[in-house]
């Protein structure tokens, strides 16, 4: 059986503004039900890519396909089935949440009782039912962001595109919002999100693409990237007392990429697999006393940092 056609597919997608290349020869495939993260610093071409996928800006060259449609040629068909939450989304401040969504509903050709029902449902789901009839001008950043997500759900799309969804949110609101994004995946939506806050989106993305200067320089799962860039995908912290000279012993284990002594009694190991058992057994052969052993996955921040330090050098 052949794999189903990707939901989002680009082929050599390029956007130039004069001499400046915002997006450079991007080839991307996102499959149904995936949460894909476009990650990179501000100005690296993430938003331009998104606008091209929605037909809001025309590519200089290359093609894009969203749900089988060309956004440059048939943007209405794409926008009918794709929900978009722009970077720092704005609403009509003097209108209430319900009125704002009612306008969106009408623009989507929804009206009457069905529209009212859907608006109630999505506001309820986003936890905004209490403030449904308050002017949006009184909303906090996090509430506006949730209203933006409610607007996406209103049109019952197959794809949700979120641009910097957690930027400007306090940690608690950001955490809540990430939970809502997980909810979208549970509904079977394909989600494309862009962010420069790597550690926040790391937790929700199935796959990520790292952007730099208009190019997608790395792509894969977080573990994948960590293995490729850092050499090890796992990080094991070991706390011991007694014999404090274990570097050689631990480095000798097959599968250990690197050993660092952080401070007396604390070692950090980069490994290619979860090797807590082997590490513990090895320490048991020495005279040291094992106090604790924990495993953490390296963060995307580190991957990013390392990658660009290496490529800049």
């Amino acid at each position: 059986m052949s794999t189903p056609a990707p939901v989002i597919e680009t082929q050599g997608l390029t956007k130039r503004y004069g001499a400046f290349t915002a997006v450079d020869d991007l080839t991307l495939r996102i499959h149904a039900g995936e949460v894909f993260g476009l990650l990179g610093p501000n100005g690296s071409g993430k938003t331009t890519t998104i606008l091209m996928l929605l037909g809001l800006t025309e590519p200089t060259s290359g093609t894009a396909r969203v749900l089988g449609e060309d956004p440059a040629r048939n943007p209405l068909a794409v926008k009918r089935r794709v929900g978009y939450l722009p970077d720092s989304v704005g609403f009509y401040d003097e209108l209430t949440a319900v009125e704002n969504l009612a306008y969106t509903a009408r623009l989507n050709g929804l009206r009457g009782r069905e529209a009212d029902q859907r608006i109630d449902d999505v506001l309820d789901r986003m936890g905004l039912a209490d403030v449904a009839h308050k002017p949006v001008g009184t909303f906090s950043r996090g509430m506006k962001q949730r209203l933006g997500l409610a607007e996406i759900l209103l049109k019952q799309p197959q794809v949700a595109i979120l641009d910097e969804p957690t930027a400007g949110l306090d940690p608690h609101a950001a955490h809540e919002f990430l939970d809502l994004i997980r909810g979208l995946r549970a509904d079977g939506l394909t989600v494309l999100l862009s962010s420069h806050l790597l550690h926040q989106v790391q937790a929700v993305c199935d796959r990520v693409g790292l952007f730099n200067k208009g190019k997608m320089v790395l792509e894969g799962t977080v573990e994948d990237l960590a293995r490729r860039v850092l050499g090890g995908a796992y990080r094991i912290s070991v706390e011991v007392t007694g014999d404090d000279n274990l570097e050689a012993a631990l480095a000798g284990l097959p599968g250990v990429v690197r050993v660092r002594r952080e401070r007396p009694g604390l070692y950090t190991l980069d490994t290619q697999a979860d090797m807590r058992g082997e590490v513990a057994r090895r320490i048991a052969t020495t005279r040291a006393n094992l106090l604790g052993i924990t495993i953490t996955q390296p963060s995307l921040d580190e991957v990013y940092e390392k990658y660009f330090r290496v490529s800049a050098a």
Partner: protein
Amino acid sequence: MIRREGTPQREGSPWTGLWAVVVKEMADHLSSPRMRVLEGLILLTAIGTVYLAIQNIRQTIGEDPFLFLRLFTTATEPLNYSFVAFMGFLIPLTAIALGFDAINGEYNRRTLSRVLAQPIYRDALLLGKFLGALFTLTITLAGLWLLVTGLGIYRLGVIPSGEEVARSLLFLLATVAYAAIWLALAMMFSVRFRQPATSAMAAMAVWLFFAVFWDIIVRIVAGIVRPVQYGFGEEQLAQAQLQLALSRLSPNTLYAEMILAFLNPQVRALGPVLLTQLEGAILGTPLPLSQSLLLVWPQLTGLTAAVLILFAATYVNFQRQEVRA
């Protein structure tokens, strides 16, 4: 069909969602404090001028076949301005107030990308905003027209004739066309300038230019290009004709001429008239409506054409703009 490679044809109607935008814009305008203030201002001046006009008409004019039209054009102490003169001043102001932040306001509220991510084209947004504001103006002006007419019937005790109604309705149409040009101009600046204050100032500057300076400039230019050196009639005629042609580049002149022809049936020509042309004419007799309409048909179409040109320029400018704020 010939299609250039690399420039894909759009699919789907550009008018999808147009009425949703129109309805939203009208609801916004009709409930906005900005519009309320202007409506109050217009209402006050309308009642003031028409009330004074009624008093004047009752005192002075006994027998006038177009008594009703005098309501619009009579200027009396202490205001010294007629209803139409005030409208010529307030309507550009209102139209600019409705249009100056049409597009840049959406940018600044960061709503543009969200709205354009809905299944509509930019065409629908731009035209919807224009029509929404124009319908708002039309509703206001039609309400005003009914008010003036009602006040006239009530205070004068005279029922307007069919022709008077037709003439004042044409005056209403001319006023809407005049409002449309300032609206189109304000919207053009709202696309061109990112700051609403800048676009408002630019639109007001154009209006001020035509209202105050254009006449002076026209007189100077006509005096230089077609000087009256020897005092011949030909020289004077040539200067007057050039002056008229230049002043007609201003929408204010076009509007004033339309008012003149619609509300004063006695007016039979809008430019310099030679004595030979008046041969056989009975001076002071009113023209039939069809002839008055014929007289200012070029003005009406000219004004409409100017609206279309301004809107087209706005459209091209808006289509080329980037969505991201």
